[in-house]
């Protein structure tokens, strides 16, 4: 079933004189985990923000769930926002709300769910991301970086999204937490048939999760394909990224796990 969740056609992004993307075409299909890869400052996060409608394209079009984000139907686009979740790099928790209220906020905004069900759903989401119940009354300022990230994930999952955006999901987590994060995304992907678009620098996460990889370099998409296809490509950036010391180690580690 090849129905596209996200379609990007001829996208140009420009900030003043600075061109970030030149004519990007990308399709994300239902049920896949697409990783965006690229050097620092290559516009990965900006591309993610374009898919969320947080930036306006200079040219081209972004469609999510076959609806143009900058088309003539702002109400329709607003409804879309209940169907996707976003995990921001720094968490972006609301500093005025407690952990419980932060996760409950999107559910309360629906205004149709009773408080008791909200309570159960929130506690389940927190439990899913490995936050103990007694943390629920804490404020974001009292939390460690890793907890902020996991609570932000719980918030992005609160509305049971079909599409999940992750910006550097494992940056700043310890290896153990990264590992359980990867496991959690895998489980959710299986259980809920989630579609995931992820920006990451972490090769281990990339290798463990991605079903397809898109490489951004010099304002364009160099290649979109499965990990093996991408690794086989001869573009100098890809050679450096995957075939450098760290890249080779990550790939080898995964290969050996698959073989054994």
């Amino acid at each position, binding site marked *: 079933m090849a129905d596209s969740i996200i379609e990007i056609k001829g996208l140009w992004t420009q900030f003043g004189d600075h061109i970030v993307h030149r004519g990007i075409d990308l399709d994300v299909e239902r049920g896949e985990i697409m990783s965006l890869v690229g050097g620092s400052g290559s516009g990965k996060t900006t591309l993610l923000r374009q898919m969320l409608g947080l930036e306006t394209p200079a040219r081209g079009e972004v469609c999510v769930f076959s609806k143009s984000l900058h088309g003539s139907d702002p109400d329709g686009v607003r409804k879309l926002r*209940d*169907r996707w979740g976003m995990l921001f790099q720094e968490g972006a928790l609301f*500093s*005025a709300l407690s952990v*419980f209220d932060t996760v409950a906020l999107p559910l309360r905004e*629906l205004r*149709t*769910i*009773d408080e*008791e*069900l909200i*309570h*159960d*759903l929130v*506690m*389940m*989401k927190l*439990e*899913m991301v490995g936050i103990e*119940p*007694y943390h*629920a*009354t804490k404020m*974001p*300022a009292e939390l460690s970086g890793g907890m902020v990230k996991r609570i932000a994930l719980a918030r992005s999952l609160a*509305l*049971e999204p079909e599409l999940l955006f992750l910006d550097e999901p494992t940056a700043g987590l310890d290896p153990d937490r990264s590992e359980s994060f990867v496991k959690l995304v895998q*489980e959710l992907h*299986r*259980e*809920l*048939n989630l579609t995931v678009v992820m920006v990451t620098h972490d090769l281990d996460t990339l290798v463990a999760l991605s079903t397809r990889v898109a490489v951004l370099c010099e304002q364009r998409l160099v290649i979109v394909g499965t990990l093996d296809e991408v690794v086989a490509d001869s573009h100098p950036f890809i050679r450096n990224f995957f075939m450098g010391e760290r890249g080779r180690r990550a790939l080898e580690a995964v290969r050996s796990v698959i073989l054994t």
Partner: protein
Amino acid sequence: MTPAPDLRRIIAADGSCRLELSGAWNLQALERRLAELAPRLAEYAADQTSQWDLSGVDVIDHAGAMLLWRAWGRRRAAKLVLKPEHEPVFSRLEIPAEPAPPHAPRDPLWVVIVIGRKLLSVLDHLAAMVMVLGQVVLDTAYLVRQPSRIPWREISSNIYRTGAQALGITALVGFLIGVVLSYLSSQQLKLFGADAFIINILGISVIRELGPVLAAILIAGRSGSAITAQLGVMRVTQELDAMAVMGIPHTLRLILPKMLALAVSMPLIVLWTDAIALLGGMVSASAELGIGYSYFVSSLPDAVPIANLWLGLGKGVVFGLLIALIACHFGLRIEPNTESLGIGTTNSVVTSITVVIIVDAVFAIMFKDVGIS
């Protein structure tokens, strides 16, 4: 689109009851029909023996599963038919969810506790401010011995920002206050035929009181908040820690230059505000009472003893030091989160304006015999 969630009860010939669920049981679809479905679910679930057939369900997510789970009394229905791919959604629910800890009950003595906390926090602020002041004095002594370490560049940039850039707003406010004060006073003086006293009234009130206080309030709002926010942001972005690691003392590089800069620029701003306010008063007096500009200017030195000017400028120096000290103190106490930044900035401005007015009252009592003939 996915089909709407549906629920049907089929009662077989032998009286046994079968519940068929179909469609999409996810939050998206359920959200609209929750009010209708929830009571029906509760009603059907009351019969423990009925069989639940979920094999017609297209999609189910945690919210849908939770809804059914609650209807079943937080356990699996005794007779349940489930698609194998939906199994994991339910298995997640079987981990018992602990209730959130209850809120702590309010202490019956909470009034005392709140007042006590407030008092302790005021004392704490005072102690911290004295400590900052002491460090600044030590730094000054150090700079006197080592003049090459004086941060000239920081001082001059602060003078520019707190002084030169504040000329516009102080001129506007000063001029308007001068016009209003002069207009209202001349209305009253006209009744008594005491027109010439407008010069005394304006001269004394503007130079001795209004000029310094007005300028101080404007600078506290403008530069005080900017200083607090700047230091606060430096705390949030860990710039303060970076400076400490490099061995650059905060007081020497951040606080001392700001205090010195405000101590220099405040009296100048006071002088400027005085002049513009008197100009406004002069314009109004000439329009209202017909007092000529040259007469106004020439009789000003006789009406207002020069001591008033020195007093006003002296107040300016003190206010400048206080505003900078309070702003820096609150800035350094901001915790590394955005909420604290907002609260800290508000507290800083409110405190410095209050302190300026209190100190002005102290000045008025201390110098009651000076400059008033």
